[in-house]
């Protein structure tokens, strides 16, 4: 996620959400007269990258679920228990795969907020 640190899991999701929140944040700044064209351009670039990531993830899942023949999966693995094709048969929409990390991210963010509240509560006045 950051240079020298492994992981793009919930970290990647966190940054995508932060990127998607940018236009709303920028709109507020625009109303306050604190924005300009250069800032909106940067927001646009980040939106493009964020939607590009979402689109490519979606495309990858679609590819796995629709283009890889089940027969091939079975012959390679001897089982379809964890193949992408079996997910489709079970009625799991591809988008759900991308959303699995969301509850985890929420728990982590809530835990951080909890630690902050506890820390401030303990702090001597």
């Amino acid at each position, binding site marked *: 996620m950051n240079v*020298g*640190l*492994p*992981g793009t899991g*919930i*970290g990647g999701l966190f*940054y995508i959400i932060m990127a998607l929140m940018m236009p709303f944040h920028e709109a507020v700044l625009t109303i306050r007269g604190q924005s300009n064209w250069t800032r909106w351009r940067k927001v646009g670039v980040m939106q493009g990258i964020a939607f590009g990531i979402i689109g490519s*993830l979606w495309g*990858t899942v679609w590819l796995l679920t629709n283009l890889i023949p089940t027969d091939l999966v079975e012959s390679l693995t001897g089982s379809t228990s964890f193949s992408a094709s079996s997910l489709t048969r079970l009625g799991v929409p591809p988008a759900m795969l991308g959303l699995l990390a969301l509850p985890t991210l929420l728990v982590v963010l809530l835990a951080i907020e909890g630690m902050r509240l506890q*820390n401030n509560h303990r702090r001597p006045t």
Partner: protein
Amino acid sequence: MNTMALPGTHPVTQKLTSNLTIIVPAFNEVEIIADTIKSLQFQTMPAAEIIVVDDCSTDGTGDIARAYGVTVVRPPTNTGSKAGAQNYALELVTTNLTMAIDADTILAPDAIEILLRALDDPEVVAACGSVLPRHVHTLWERGRYIEYLLAFTFYKPIQEYYEKPLISSGCFSVYRTEVLRNNQGWNRRTMAEDMDLTWTFYQAGHKVRFVPEAVCYPIEPHSFPFMRRQLKRWSHGFIQNVQLHWRGILNVPCLRSLVGVAMWDAVVASLAYLFLIPLLAILTGNPWFLLGYLIDIPAVIIPVVYAAIARRELGQALTSLPSFFILRLVNSIFILEALWTEMVLHRQLKVYEKGH
């Protein structure tokens, strides 16, 4: 970069002056110090003074630096770390701004001019630029190249947008001298003095900026022994800073989430890469689990391709992509080692080993 003058001549682009001193800590850098100094002298906005700290080199680094007309200081004994060498020179700085540049790092010709604009805002006390490897040949350099493209194209601009760059990179950052001195310079209590300084600034209510257009080119570790030293230092530095600052940064909006998510992701991803994925593949006899190593290719490739196209380096980026996944696996080993040593065994890494 290749249109630089010989020692003793004056750069033709020296039209502007600035209230800036550049500190270059150097220990046995005879092969590369000249390129670093030349890139500083040929800036569109050159510094008022360049101080090379010859940290008791034994290879004539100081003599080479002197030949280029910069100030060279030599402490009585080796300071033992980059932070120590930088602090030694900080006492000599007379300008309002101080820049830290690694001895193996060259700058784009307009890097300083662009970076200094961030300090027009009086609330900003530090600013850093983008980083890209100077050489992209070996597996390790290629892996790091992709890491940088990804981080400086997607993650860091988002951190900057929310006014909380996670770190003002030590290889190329500028600071307000007074604030730096009030902080007693670069602290040596962790292996990542730049992260320590950045988080200290945030807790004091200061602003730090990331300016992507200001670009520097360090020499990255080209082999595993050198990469090992750097990753060990960075991993331990990150864990040490989390241990040191966690209470303080809980009260810094956005930063607390950035650090918390980074910590979680680093630990969980490392456990998944090193244990969960291979164990699942072995225990179930299902090789499809190994796709877990590559499942996030789409999330990596989009920012990387965007940056590579802009830099006209698409071929280099695509051929370097596999190296990123290998480096990430190696990163996992070091972050878990650092976590175990620092947090469980309470054995703090204190010896600073150079990355090259």
